[in-house]
């Protein structure tokens, strides 16, 4: 696969008009002993293809729970969740695993790379569970790493990479199966401000190419990089507005991501 394919695949996700993610009165109740905690009290949100949304909120506002539900790591207690029009809220564990592998790309605050495993193998991981042949896995992983500017770090293990580089490996891993939506949970939480800007620049570029990005953060500065900010409070949507004066992340020439053909 050559460079343009990733761009095209990102655009392909944008092609069908209409919502990519649609939740209807999504509720999640955790039962801890006798106490019931309403993490989500009815979230109805529609995310269209090509959007770049930041979910904000204090801790306990339900934003992480919402992220887990959208990421198919968990099932809602009530309500519906349509992913590309398909109701996944009652899927079995195995079906959810399949959806996670094909439709979702995760980027975590703590990177969550496999230790003592080099960058290419880390990026190959999602393809391992989709039955993609080894040769193609390797080629696609190397390509994804090149698109995040790590073409010369393929054999490096996480311990040999800086925090920003590790997060870029994680982003490459999130992209490699050409997901419908990329979910980033506090992706800059463990990074310094300079590196945070670099990572946000990558998300903005990918979004420019048509990728749908859902970002959870509690930092207003970071949220300003998105196109739309949704604020949660006590398991409900408090505020939902378009970003004015959107920040565009500048990146140093040294760190500049390779330009791609077909980029929007």
């Amino acid at each position, binding site marked *: 696969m050559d460079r343009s394919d990733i761009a095209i695949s990102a655009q392909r996700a944008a092609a069908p008009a209409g919502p990519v993610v649609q939740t209807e009165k999504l509720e999640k109740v955790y039962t801890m002993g006798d106490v019931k905690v309403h993490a989500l009290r009815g979230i109805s949100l529609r995310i269209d293809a090509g959007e770049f949304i930041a979910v904000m909120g204090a801790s306990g506002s339900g934003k992480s729970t919402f992220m887990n539900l959208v990421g198919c790591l968990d099932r809602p207690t009530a309500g519906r969740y349509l992913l590309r029009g398909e109701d996944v809220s009652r899927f079995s564990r*195995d079906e959810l695993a*399949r959806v*996670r*592998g094909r439709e979702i790309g995760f980027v975590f605050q703590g990177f*969550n*790379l*496999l230790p003592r495993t080099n960058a290419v193998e880390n990026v190959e*991981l999602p393809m*391992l569970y989709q039955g993609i042949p*080894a040769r193609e896995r390797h080629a696609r992983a190397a390509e994804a790493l090149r698109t995040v500017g790590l073409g010369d770090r393929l054999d490096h293990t996480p311990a040999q990479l800086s925090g920003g580089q590790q997060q870029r490996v994680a982003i490459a891993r999130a992209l490699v199966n050409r997901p419908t939506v990329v979910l980033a949970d506090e992706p800059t939480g463990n990074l310094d401000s300079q590196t945070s800007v670099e990572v946000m620049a990558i998300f903005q570029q990918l979004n420019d190419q048509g990728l749908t990005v859902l970002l959870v953060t509690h930092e207003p500065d970071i949220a300003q990089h998105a196109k739309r900010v949704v604020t949660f409070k006590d398991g409900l949507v408090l505020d939902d507005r378009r970003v004015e004066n959107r920040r565009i992340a500048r990146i140093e020439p040294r760190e500049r991501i390779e330009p791609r053909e077909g980029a929007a």
Partner: protein
Amino acid sequence: MNILAALRTALRALRKNKLRSFLAALGIVIAVAAVVATVAIGQGAQAKVAAQMASLGSNMLMILPGSMMQHGAATGTGATQNLTRDDAQAIEKELTSSVGAIAPMNRTGAQVIYGDANWFTQVVGTSPSYLEVRSWTLAQGEMFGRQEDASAAKVCILGQTVVDKLFGAQPALGEQIRVKHVPCKVVGILSLKGQSWGGQDQDDIILMPWTTLVRRINGSQSDAVGSLMVSARTSNLVSVAQREVTSLLKQRHHLADSVDPDFQVRNLAEMQNAAQEQTNTVAWLLKSVAAISLLVGAIGIANVMLVSVTERTREIGIRMAVGARGRDVLFQFLTEAVVLAIVGGLLGLGLGVAVAKYAAIQAQWPTLLSPLAMAGTMLLAGVAGVLAGFYPALRASRLDPIEALRFE
């Protein structure tokens, strides 16, 4: 995830923790080595016992005079002198269908002298059919005949040990030696027989005609024999011969069927079976120890896999987040356990074969490696790996991805 990818993932994970993987597999290594070695050693020992038993003589019955009451006190077996050469002749004449050969045997210890060399050995007085009964052959010369037996000829046949002690490398055939006070001509030399099952040197022996020993060396006029050795025509006829010999001798000794005989008939096949059973018992003991070590080895793998699952909880969470199903995780950990067991099994196989060869060289028996036992043990090792890995793998596969990802 296909098998090849699972295998590569498992090997990679095991390589990352070489020492722990080695220690985990060590139990299986030792267990498989123990099974392979003990089976080989057991079979080697049995082969040796069987060979030694066969060296006593084929299909052989041993008839010994019984005990008797003398003034109210019982004497030991062989104390009576009620077994005679006439008995031997009667058996030879009348039981031709079941008995192949019969040889009387009297034994005495004697000093033997040649030149300035001397040796103390066992002298056996017997008939020419002794060689047939004991399935023995001569290396040189010829066996004495009935003529020499009848005339108490001063001839003898030497065992290899006696030849070594008296003659060294010198030729012995045709030489004159002295057995006690009687000069005897060496007319034959026995082939090498080796140790008996009891560890006795069977080659430390001199054969001579029965009459020569009894009349000339012992100076006795009695016809009583120390024992009779009878060989049945075939191994199937051993028990028939035993029955017929018993009933004939009872008849000759004027004993009713219901009365206990005044002699004993010992069946060497029974002794052989007893010896075989003894080695079987030891073999079973070794096998059960090996089986227990296999169990311990499996527990070792289970333990390491459980630790590994806990330690790699976050890895499992990551794999699930990027699309691994429960069964993919299960398969991954199961593969690791099985690879550990199989690699351990192969190492153990090599070690076991080495130990078996070494033992065979030390104990001088053939290296008998049973392919069935080796294949079976490898299969068992694989099964042990599956069983040991299954529970940890199942636990891993049932982890909640969110919990697993949060695990520190």
